[in-house]
């Protein structure tokens, strides 16, 4: 480019600092910000990946439009890409080579597409990826080889899919994983060893599934878990030791399940519950078998969410009473 043309371009950019469209280096379907830390391109409406994005592009937003095809060389020429936001399109498959040339990718958002599977090896070059969001797709399962290469993954969101069962080896060696979201699926059970390779897990979302129980030892390898969401399942019984390794738990949500009884000591070894706990919307059977729970409740009542929605379902003479009130009145053997 001749220096006078460069000067003209510079003058043009200086005079119109926010004008990103119609500038020669930004594709027609896109709006590009001026490069400061690399170009940020927001594109659409369109139905195919725009060609000609500048080589310094770090952020690409193509959302809520009709993108359905992502060819394997779609991201060719974007070696600096850090974040790829593709929510709300019609992407039903991804080529295994898509991310080969974007080793700096940190964030991939594929929320709200129509993916039913992922190719194995997709993330082989994705050692920098820290956030992967697959929420709201049509995944019925997840295979370990789909996730190979995600050594730095911090946040994995597979919520609102159609997951029924998960392979036990799915999450081995995800040592960086802090947040795992499996909510709003159709999970009938969790393999007991599912969380074995997640020593740094801090948040686990399992709300809105079909879990009837949790296997002993499910949380034995996640001692730093702070937030555990189990509401809206079909939990009717729990092993007494299930939460005993969770000494740092700040929030436990067991609301909207089928819990009538819990074993003695279920909640005793848990962390401080600094944020709170929710036992509401369960069919509590308020007899003497719940004495262990009554005792714990009285010691932790200031952190109890929805006290007036945590009610006894039975026996008849307790039905409709607040669990906490029964705990206060019931004469239990000394603990």
């Amino acid at each position, binding site marked *: 480019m001749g220096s006078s043309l460069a000067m003209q371009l510079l003058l043009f950019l200086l005079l119109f600092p926010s004008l990103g469209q119609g500038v020669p280096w930004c594709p027609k379907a896109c709006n590009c910000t001026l490069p400061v830390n690399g170009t940020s391109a927001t594109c659409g409406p369109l139905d195919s990946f725009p060609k000609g994005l500048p080589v310094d592009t770090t*952020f690409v937003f193509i959302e809520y439009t009709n993108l359905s095809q992502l060819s394997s060389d779609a991201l060719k020429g974007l070696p600096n890409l850090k*974040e790829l*936001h593709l*929510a709300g399109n019609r992407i039903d498959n991804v080529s295994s080579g898509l991310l080969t040339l974007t080793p700096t990718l940190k964030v991939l958002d594929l929320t*709200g597409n129509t993916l039913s599977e992922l190719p194995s090896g997709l993330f082989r070059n994705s050692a920098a990826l820290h956030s992967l*969001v697959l929420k709201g797709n049509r995944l019925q399962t997840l295979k370990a080889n789909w996730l190979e290469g995600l050594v730095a993954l911090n946040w994995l969101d597979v919520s609102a899919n159609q997951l029924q069962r998960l392979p036990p080896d799915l999450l081995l060696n995800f040592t960086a994983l802090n947040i795992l979201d499996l909510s709003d699926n159709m999970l009938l059970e969790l393999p007991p060893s599912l969380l074995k390779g997640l020593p740094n897990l801090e948040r686990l979302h399992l709300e809105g599934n079909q879990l009837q129980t949790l296997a002993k030892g499910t949380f034995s390898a996640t001692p730093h878990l702070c*937030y555990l*969401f189990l509401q809206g399942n079909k939990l009717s019984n729990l092993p007494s030791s299930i939460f005993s390794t969770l000494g740092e738990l700040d929030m436990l*949500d067991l609301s909207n399940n089928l819990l009538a009884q819990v074993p003695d000591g279920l909640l005793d070894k848990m962390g401080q519950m600094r944020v709170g706990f*929710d036992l509401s919307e369960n069919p509590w059977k308020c007899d003497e078998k719940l004495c262990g729970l009554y005792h714990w409740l009285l010691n932790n009542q200031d952190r109890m969410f929805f006290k007036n929605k945590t009610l006894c379902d039975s026996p008849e003479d307790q039905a409709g009473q607040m669990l906490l009130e029964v705990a206060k009145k019931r004469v239990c053997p000394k603990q």
Partner: protein
Amino acid sequence: MGDVEKGEKIFVQKCAPCHTVENGGKHKTGPNLNGLFGRKTGQSPGFFYTDANKNKGIIWGEDMLMEYLENPKKYIPGTKMIFTGIEKKGERADLIVCLKKATSE
């Protein structure tokens, strides 16, 4: 009228992974939200916002948040925020009531 207790649970579940609310709270994936109400978009000091967010140019209040939190990406195309939104109006109202309280303490 939103329910603060419900809002608190929604915040912990859906917002707390990326945002703090208290005065002096740190930025995480998203900005600290203290002082949000009555402030223009993209102004939490020290956070690197996208131009899309900074240039939206509205002042955050209950009505704006009601619209935004239904689908943030539609309200601010080009936002980095990864959150599909809260469909139920009642839940948004609960969250907003909680936010108003927590971000002004």
